[in-house]
């Protein structure tokens, strides 16, 4: 069934905007010596551009095979980070109550992207006029339960993030610094920092956290994640 072109273009436009914002955010955070969340932002940029290219073929920057490799790499990275986090928790080096869900959601997003490239059937449409992919048909349609799981996970994550958005009210600016030990410790990594920002429960407010370790525009960063989850969910629903 033909899909409204204007809708595909709208989502593609939003995805390109989110990708550009993530790049700009990364540059600004580096310049200002703030938390960078490098892995999260790189994955957002890749997913944003990948989805934009899927929605509007003329925006596709890379061949599908290369995109698949990119998302496999992202999936492996977040899998490794999740395993490492669990190992550190088991050994008692980390007391954070949250973190696995942070890696898990980004892993799910990467897997959903891989699914979109592997399971999709190229649509017989004119280049640049509609989505380049449609849902699987025939025997492939037997896997439609998987995208539904992805969709529910992505939407639950979007809703969860939105619920946590109000913790960063202007009057509680000190909360932005989410000064967990892992965020301020010498071994802090981008992904660990973002676990505090994205995760929720693990983030404890601290007024002692220096300005330099505070996250840059955390609400906008969470907003990007929410928009990305909704767009990805939309694309997966088209493949149901």
């Amino acid at each position: 069934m033909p899909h409204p072109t204007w809708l595909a273009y709208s989502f593609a436009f939003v995805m390109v905007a989110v990708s550009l914002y993530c790049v700009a955010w990364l540059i600004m955070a580096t310049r200002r010596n703030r938390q960078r969340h490098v892995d999260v932002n790189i994955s957002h940029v890749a997913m944003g551009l990948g989805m934009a290219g899927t929605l509007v073929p003329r925006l596709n920057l890379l061949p599908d095979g290369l995109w698949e490799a990119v998302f496999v790499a992202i999936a492996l990275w977040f899998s490794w980070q999740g395993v490492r986090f669990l190992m550190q928790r088991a050994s008692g080096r980390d007391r954070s109550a949250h973190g696995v869900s942070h890696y898990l959601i980004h892993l799910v997003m990467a897997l959903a992207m891989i699914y979109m490239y592997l399971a999709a059937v190229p649509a017989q449409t004119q280049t640049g006029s509609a989505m380049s992919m449609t849902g699987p048909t025939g025997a492939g349609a037997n896997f439609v339960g998987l995208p539904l799981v992805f969709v529910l996970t992505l939407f639950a994550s979007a809703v969860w993030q939105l619920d946590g958005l109000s913790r960063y009210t202007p009057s509680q600016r000190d909360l932005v610094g989410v000064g967990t030990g892992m965020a301020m410790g010498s071994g802090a990594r981008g992904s660990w920092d973002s676990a505090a920002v994205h995760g929720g429960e693990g983030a404890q407010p601290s007024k002692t956290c220096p300005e330099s370790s505070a996250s840059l525009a955390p609400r906008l960063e969470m907003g990007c994640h929410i928009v990305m989850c909704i767009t990805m969910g939309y694309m997966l629903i088209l493949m149901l």
Partner: protein
Amino acid sequence: MVGGTSESVGSTRVRASTGTPPAWRPPDERRALQLVLATIWLLDGVLQLQPFMFTRQFGTTMLAPTAAGNPNPVAHSITWAAHVISNHSVTTDACFAVIQILLGLAIAWRPTVKAGLAASIVWAVMVWWFGEGLGGVIAGRAHTVSGAPGAVLLYAVLAVLLWPSDRVGPDPSFIAARAVGEPVARLLWVVLWGGLSLFAMLGSNRSADGLRDLVLRMSTGEPAWLASLDRHVADALGRRGLAISIVLCVVLAAIALSVYLPFRPARVMVWLAVTVALLIWVLGQNFGQVFSGSATDLNSGPLLALFAVAYWRHRPPATVTPEVRRRVAVGMA
């Protein structure tokens, strides 16, 4: 919240007499259920963006037929709405999608949760009327298995039960009673599950082939594995529709009355209610037919389960009899 009113979006009730906003707290049980409701609204909104919804067929083949069997004024209004929607399918469907996505987001964002829930009640009632033909309740087409009394009506009921305020008095024994009080919440439970029990036995639902035909009809357009499941279920049902409807009616009636049971048996019955809801969703509703490309929601199964979870009994506080209190006092002395 200003002025000593009860703010209870977060984990505990926070009373603030100053102008400073309350500190952010992790979601409590009710908030978690609100977030599930928000997720379902969000999903409904995005489902509305499926290609089929932007076509004239959405109005002519999905909405217009729901007018059949309803009283003339109701049927006329539904036909009129379907006509308008089919003539302006792209605009109206885009609006529907945006509204539902915004409802989900509003419920999920704490500052707008009340506005979101209130708007969702209004929207749900409108959809129940114009989109579901009052769930077929008046027309006599309603069946528990197919989603009676209209899935969207459950959104409105849940919005009321999960309203973020607390009645003055002792803590209620389940989440659903926090906003409306235990008597009203229990009554709603009895009405809903009792109604479902009744719908299982109404009209053609008593026929020997009714259930089997209902399940078989849904296999059209479904993926192979689900269609195969439907056929197996239909074969198992055979011509035993009446017997199964009677069993379903009795089970649902027992669930309806279980809200007045004490703590432990009530919990067991909530489990049973969730199980029945999910069985109906999988076997009777094909996951809301979301794989067909023309589903507008998940149907009633997940909402019934969510509704049941809101009645999960909290462990009653340990009661201390005067005799025990006296012994403790003597012991301490």
